[in-house]
């Protein structure tokens, strides 16, 4: 309700086009991909790229659509209706996690050679920051990139890398200096076909099962120096900015997925008769549902507020950190709460609610854990 305040008819046409694609090309296959533990990303992204879904905000010069943040939001809302978390996450890696830094700081060469094919869906991208000993504590990363003539020599490993077994290139953060402080890191585009790259392991996860997640290994891997994104030593700062796009993407996918979860639950509660009455008639359950609906609406409105701030060119790190924190907290409470309302059926893997429950957990962990969001906010508040 009220969406016409924010979205034009053209936005709504784009919304319908994406929804049509999701309903016909993605949702019918989700169960199969969840079972296999991987989705055919090259095939899916090619189709999405042909329709212009992977480069909403990017310059037309690179095959993008040159559209505003509201269109990006439409895409993120609609992929939120995919009946799992894994595929929306894989798409958001391509659009909001691995390519924004190339767009904002990359050379013409990198935009032409990597961003353009990513927008067209000819290349699958991944973001490689996390390491076995460095997750939300990004500055603790140990992977090194040492300058050697026209190359950098990459050594180390990355883990929990979404799209990791299929990616054609990684947007990777490595240490380029031993000096302490935040100016010792650089971002690179790392093509996975070069010698020295290895997918050491495909990881088995609690949820997001249709998304492949990998542990990657770099053994004296020679990367052309021109694959450096922006200025050497500024990678940490660039990645912190890129994280804003990633964390923002969590918000619409959360409120849309959460709303779908409530609808799934209400449908079940209407049909489930206990002690002679449908479960939906129980006040305690109805009150919990509307509490969550209220929180979903709050998150949605915060997201719309952020889009307006972005359109006005304002800094949104505070609001995005709040939104990411709120998303994780909401899903942590709601997914378990909804599953509880399904009783024993909720515990069955065949039920969609159990998938929502498993997939939801990542929102408070990935892309900067809730604790890290709280720390960022505390610092911003001057505590």
């Amino acid at each position, binding site marked *: 309700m009220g969406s016409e305040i924010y979205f034009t*008819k*053209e936005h*709504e*046409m*784009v919304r*319908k*086009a994406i929804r*049509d*694609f999701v*309903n*016909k*090309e993605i949702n019918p296959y989700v169960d199969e991909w969840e079972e296999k533990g991987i989705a055919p990303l090259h095939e899916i992204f090619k*189709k999405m790229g*042909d*329709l*212009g*879904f992977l480069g*909403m905000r990017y310059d037309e010069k690179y095959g993008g*659509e040159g*559209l505003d943040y509201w269109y990006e939001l439409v895409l993120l809302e609609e992929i939120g209706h995919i009946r799992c978390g894994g595929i929306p996450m894989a798409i958001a890696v391509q659009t909001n996690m691995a390519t924004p830094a190339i767009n904002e700081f990359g050379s013409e060469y990198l935009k032409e050679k990597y961003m353009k094919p990513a927008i067209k869906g000819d290349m699958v991208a991944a973001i490689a920051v996390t390491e076995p000993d460095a997750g939300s504590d990004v500055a603790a990363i140990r992977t090194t990139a040492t300058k050697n003539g026209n190359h950098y020599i990459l050594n180390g490993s990355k883990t929990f890398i979404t799209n990791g077994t299929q990616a054609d290139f990684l947007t990777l953060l490595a240490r380029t200096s031993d000096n302490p402080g935040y100016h010792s890191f650089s971002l690179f585009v790392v093509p996975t076909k070069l010698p020295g790259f290895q997918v050491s392991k495909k990881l088995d996860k609690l949820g997001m099962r249709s998304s492949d997640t990998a542990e990657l290994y770099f053994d004296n891997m020679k990367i052309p120096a021109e694959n450096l994104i922006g200025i050497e030593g500024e990678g940490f700062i660039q990645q912190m900015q890129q994280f804003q796009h990633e964390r923002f993407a969590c918000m619409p996918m959360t409120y849309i997925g959460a709303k779908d979860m409530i609808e799934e639950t209400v449908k079940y509660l209407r049909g489930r008769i206990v002690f002679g009455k449908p479960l939906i008639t129980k006040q305690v359950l109805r009150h919990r549902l509307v509490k969550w609906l209220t929180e979903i609406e709050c998150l949605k409105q915060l997201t719309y507020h952020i889009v307006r701030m972005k359109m006005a060119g304002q800094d949104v790190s505070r609001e995005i950190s709040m939104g990411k924190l709120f998303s994780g907290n909401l899903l942590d409470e709601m997914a378990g709460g909804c599953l509880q309302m399904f009783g024993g059926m909720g515990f069955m893997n*065949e039920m969609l609610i159990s998938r929502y429950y498993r997939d939801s957990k990542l929102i408070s962990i990935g892309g900067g854990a809730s604790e890290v969001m709280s720390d960022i906010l505390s610092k911003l508040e001057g505590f």
Partner: protein
Amino acid sequence: MEILVCVKRVPDTSENEIGVNSAGTDIDRDDLVYSVNEWDNYAVEEAIQIVDRVGGKVTVVAVGDSESEEVLRREMAMGANDGLLLSDDSFGGSDGKGIATILKAAVKKGNYDLVLTGAQADAGAGQVGGMLAAMLDQPYASLVNSIEIINDKTLKVGREIEGGNQEMNEIQMPCVLSIQTGINEPRYVGIRGIRKVASVEIPVLGALDLGVSSGSVGSAGAKVKVQDYFVPQLGKGAEILEGSTEEIIDKLIELLKVKGGLK
């Protein structure tokens, strides 16, 4: 080839749970999501493919209020060249014959070799195509599931016949065909297409422009009127299978075996 495709804005059954309204006169239309009638979408795709092969132009036309413009624009984003909205307060409540009367007037204003409709729309009557052809005094083929161009005067069309049989016909143009789903695979609408048509003016023609007398269309001209609308009671022979999809499939196979449908 000049092709006119008639399209209708209908409730999207994949987005809505359709129920009967409290008065029992229609479906409940509050908060419904609408989209283009599925059969019509196949017809538009077929028209675009024909024009891609032999050249020409595809025009999409809808009878409806201003909201119908969204389906015209969607089909134009898909690849139709022009749109035309037939809209007038007097058109409301038209029966099949009324709609065919309005469409006939629009066809007469152009110079179309081929007019396509969907085989049916949300009301399921499937009558507009046939009536339109009769009013235009043009040949007609229904349930068309393949079209081959023989020459600039003749088409070879396949028709889906009861029991999975197929019939092939030659038909002379100009003609009217009603298109069955499955004739092709309609393309998706992409961002470029949407942007291309976003600000295109779509002409609107009313009763006066079309030369249609208000007494012959709309509620005033309708000789078929819905009297009642309801969900029938379950009959004795009916059995609703319940459970998960897998369980329903197992039960259905078992039933078919028991009743002799599967051996």
